[in-house]
């Protein structure tokens, strides 16, 4: 069984008027069936308001489904006595790096999660050392987070989650506020964690370039899961992706346009090298 499993998952936001009556209900997530296997690098794509962040918050049990069920490592997120175990298994990294760092020193922030879990002191130090090393931030352990760049802050945030020894990390648009350099740093750290530590990574994003290396891509639109498959399968549907308000990577787009104008090219080109090879053949 997969580490994350959702069946008919639905979540409605309600707006109330002064009398506590429901004025407006909007379906943020509707009827989502989702399976993510342990060890996968999964990406969830969608434009603003597609429900991808709402879905992410369900995996960490920050939100409870109003319909359907979500299981994290076999635990139903609606069971309140499992709440802390679910949050430990499925860590979460948010968009704004400034608003999720609690400590005034890098190493203290990384230790925050284990402290909350009641891990003994010596163990906390061991975990902090390991997690900082895993994201390549050991050299900055005594620094103040305020002095770090955006990419470094996000790596500290990832280390903070790793120190809780989760089986799965959910990242809600972790690179949206970073410059291209910082974005690369964060993605590299994530890929390494996925490959070396076998942590399941669920990356929520709207940058197409970031999902090229994913094992599985899920596309969301208006609260529904509209497509899923490998990046190659997904990006070969250029027209459908556009309907969801998403662009495919530039190279894929170029290949698509060339094919439309009559060139003989395969449909699943993802990288520049592949396109060069295909054209030169």
């Amino acid at each position: 069984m997969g580490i994350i499993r959702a069946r008919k998952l639905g979540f409605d936001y309600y707006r109330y008027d002064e009398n506590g009556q429901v004025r407006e209900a909007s379906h943020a997530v509707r009827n989502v069936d989702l399976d993510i296997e342990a060890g996968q690098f999964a990406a969830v794509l969608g434009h603003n308001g597609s429900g991808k962040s709402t879905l992410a918050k369900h995996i960490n049990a920050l939100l409870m489904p109003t319909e359907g069920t979500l299981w994290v490592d076999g635990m139903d997120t609606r069971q309140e006595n499992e709440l802390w175990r679910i949050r430990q298994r499925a860590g979460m990294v948010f968009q704004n790096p400034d608003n999720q760092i609690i400590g005034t020193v890098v190493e203290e922030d990384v230790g925050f999660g284990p402290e909350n879990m009641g891990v003994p002191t010596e163990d906390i130090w061991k975990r902090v050392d390991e997690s900082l090393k895993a994201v390549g931030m050991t050299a900055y352990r005594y620094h103040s987070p305020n002095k770090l760049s955006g990419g470094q802050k996000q790596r500290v945030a990832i280390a903070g989650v790793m120190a809780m020894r989760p089986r799965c990390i959910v990242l809600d648009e972790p690179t949206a506020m970073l410059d291209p350099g910082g974005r690369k740093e964060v993605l590299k750290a994530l890929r390494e964690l996925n490959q070396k530590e076998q942590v399941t990574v669920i990356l929520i994003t709207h940058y197409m370039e970031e999902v090229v290396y994913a094992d599985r891509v899920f596309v969301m639109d208006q609260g529904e899961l509209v497509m899923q498959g490998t990046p190659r399968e997904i990006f070969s549907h250029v027209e459908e992706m556009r309907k969801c308000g998403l662009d495919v990577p530039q190279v894929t787009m170029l290949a698509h346009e060339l094919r439309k104008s009559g060139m003989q090219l395969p449909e699943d080109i993802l990288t520049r090298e592949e396109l060069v090879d295909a054209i030169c053949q």
Partner: protein
Amino acid sequence: MIRDITLGQYYPADSVLHRLDPRTKFVGTLLFVISLFIFHTFPGYGAATVFLAGMIGLSKVPVSFMFRGLKAIFVILLLTVVFNMLLTPGQVIWQLGFLKITWEGLMQAGRMAIRLVYLVVGSSIMTLTTTPNQLTDGLENLMGPLNRIHVPVHEIAMMMSIALRFIPILMEETDKIMKAQMARGADFESGNIMQKAKNMIPLLVPLFVSAFRRANDLAMAMEARCYHGGEGRTQMKPLKYKGRDYAAYGILAGYLALGIAFRIWGI
């Protein structure tokens, strides 16, 4: 420029005082303040001076930093001295109309001035050698017993340390909003106090909104990392007394005993 403001007044150095447990330093400062009120003669103040000078020497913090805090209390100091000099009854030394300076008044003024100055310098030693974070930790630990009467000690300490972390961020944000408003013609400089205060509104409203948004995000991030209050929480850097702390307590006890002895024998 606004980013350079340091919090508290911690002066980084490597001294015995810097390495002492924050609890020791807090208790020590408290005892020193008490001692200032136990001593009431000049030999006594001499002893306090020796103790204070010793601490300043140990702290490796430049003396000028110690006396910086005095600027803030200068007016209070001046008023205390003047009123004590003029209003204490006793043997008149000098008189001008209804103003008279008495010998007793002079003594009293001197005592008050010494107490105030030593009080400020003494507590400066603590804040100069302890990071705000250590101070928070120490306070949380010392206030621990208050938990029994349902004072949320851990929560208060957590709020303090979060505030410490967010002050520079909010400062930077203030700077940014200020510049953005100035670029659109806002005027923060001219006008009288009332007008200036009114001009601050376009600065304060977005600042508050963003502070609340940050608070909301942070609360969610903390929950996502299993924060559920102080219960069942362990510490990465638990406070532990070491040999030097016991030595410090020994010295403090000796110093306090001296003060009490002076008082009993009336020196």
